[in-house]
C-alpha cells in the first residue's frame, strides 16, 4: 500500500457491490492515507444512472479524504450512455489508461510537493 490505490472493476457492477466498494474504499483511504485513487473501469461495459452516480460519489468522498480520484479506461459506449443520462461527472478526472492516470496523479502529487516543499512524497510505489 503506497501513495496510490488502484481499484479494478472486473465484473458487472450491481448496486450492492457498488455500495460495498464505496465503503471499502473510504476505509482504505483513511487507513493508508493514500493521496490518489485510480478506478479502472475498462472492463465495465454496462452502466446505469446508479453506477454513474456511485462513481461521482466515490470521487467526491475521496476528495474529502484528501485523495485525488482518476477514472481510467472508460469504454466509448459507457461514455455515451453517461452523457445521454446527463451524468457528466464534473470534478472527476479521467485518463485513457492506468499508465496515463498514474502519470496524472504523480504529476498532481509532484506539484503539491512543489507547493508545500515536502520531500520524497512521490517515491512511494502504488499498490
Amino acid at each position, binding site marked *: 500500500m503506497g501513495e496510490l490505490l488502484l481499484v479494478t472493476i472486473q465484473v458487472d457492477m450491481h448496486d450492492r457491490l457498488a455500495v460495498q466498494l464505496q465503503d471499502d474504499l473510504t476505509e482504505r483511504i483513511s487507513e493508508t492515507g493514500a493521496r490518489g485513487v485510480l478506478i479502472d473501469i475498462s472492463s465495465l461495459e454496462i452502466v446505469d444512472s446508479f453506477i454513474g452516480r456511485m462513481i461521482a460519489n466515490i470521487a467526491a468522498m475521496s476528495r474529502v479524504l484528501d485523495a485525488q480520484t482518476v*477514472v*481510467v*479506461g*472508460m*469504454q*466509448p459506449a*459507457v*461514455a*455515451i450512455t*453517461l*452523457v*445521454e443520462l446527463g451524468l*457528466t*461527472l464534473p470534478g472527476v478526472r*479521467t*485518463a*485513457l*489508461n492506468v499508465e*496515463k*492516470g498514474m502519470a496524472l496523479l504523480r504529476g498532481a502529487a509532484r506539484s503539491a510537493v512543489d507547493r508545500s516543499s515536502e520531500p520524497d512524497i512521490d517515491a512511494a510505489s502504488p499498490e
Partner: protein
Amino acid sequence: MTTAAEGAIARILKSHEEPILDEWIRDQMTSFRQGGRISERELRTQSTEFLSLLQQAVQSGDVDIQSPTFGRVRDALGDISRSRAMQGYSPSETATFVFSLKRPVFQRLRQELGGDPQAFADASWSATELLDRLGLYTTEIYQRGREEVIARQQQDLLELSTPVVKLWDGVLALPMIGTLDSARTQVVMEALLQRIVETGAEIAIIDITGVPTVDTLTAQHLLKTVTAARLMGADCIISGIRPQIAQTIVHLGVDLADVSTKATLADAFRLALAKTGQSSPTGRARA
C-alpha cells in the same frame, strides 16, 4: 365475356409471337432513339424473354398478374425495371417497355376480330387491363430500385462524412462537413471515441469549418461529444468557428466555457502540441 376475350389474346400472342415481337422492338427502338442507351441486341433479348413468358402465362387463361402463374413474368419484369433504375432511366422510359407492346397487340386483335366489334372491344379491354397492370408493376419496381439506390448513397455519405484522422502522436482530428443532425452526430461520436480508444490519443480536435450553421441542437451534440471524450480521458478542442457562428453561439446562449475553442485548425493543433508537451513543427523539425 372475359374468358372469350382472354382466349383471343392468348391465341393471338401464340400464333403471332414473331411479328408482334418484331414490331414491338421496332416501336421501342424509335422511342429510345434519342437516348440510345440500350443496344438493339440487349433490347431484343429482354423483349423476347418477356414476351415468351407472358405468352405462356396468358395461355392459362389467368389475367391476375399477382397470381403464381405470372411469377416468372413478374421476376423478369422486375429484373428489367431494376436494371433500368440503376442505369438512370426515367420512369416513363421504363414503363414504355410494357406500354409499347399495346400497339402491335391491338393491331393483331383488329386483324383477327375486325369482323366482330363486340368481341374486339372485349379483347381490347382485357389486353389493356393486363398491360396496364404490368406497366404499373414496372413503375413500382422501378421506384423501389431507386429507393434502394438512395438508401445506399445515404449510408455511404454518412460513413464518408466522418473521417477521423491522426494528426500527430496523440492528436486526432475530426473534420466535420455538412449539417449535423442527431443520426450523424451519433455516428461521429462513436467513430471518434472508438478511434480514441484505438490510438490512445489524448487530444481530439473537432474542426467545424465545413459546418454551415450551428443551432442549439448542433451545439448540444457537440458538447455531448466533448463530454463523452472527456469521460474517457481525452481533451477536445473545437476549431474552425467562423465569425457568424461565434455570433450565433453567443446569441443562442450556448455555454462553451468549459471547452477550448480556436479559430483555426492550425491554432488548435499548436495548442494540442503544447498540451501533449511536444514541440511545434514550425519551430523546429521534429526527429
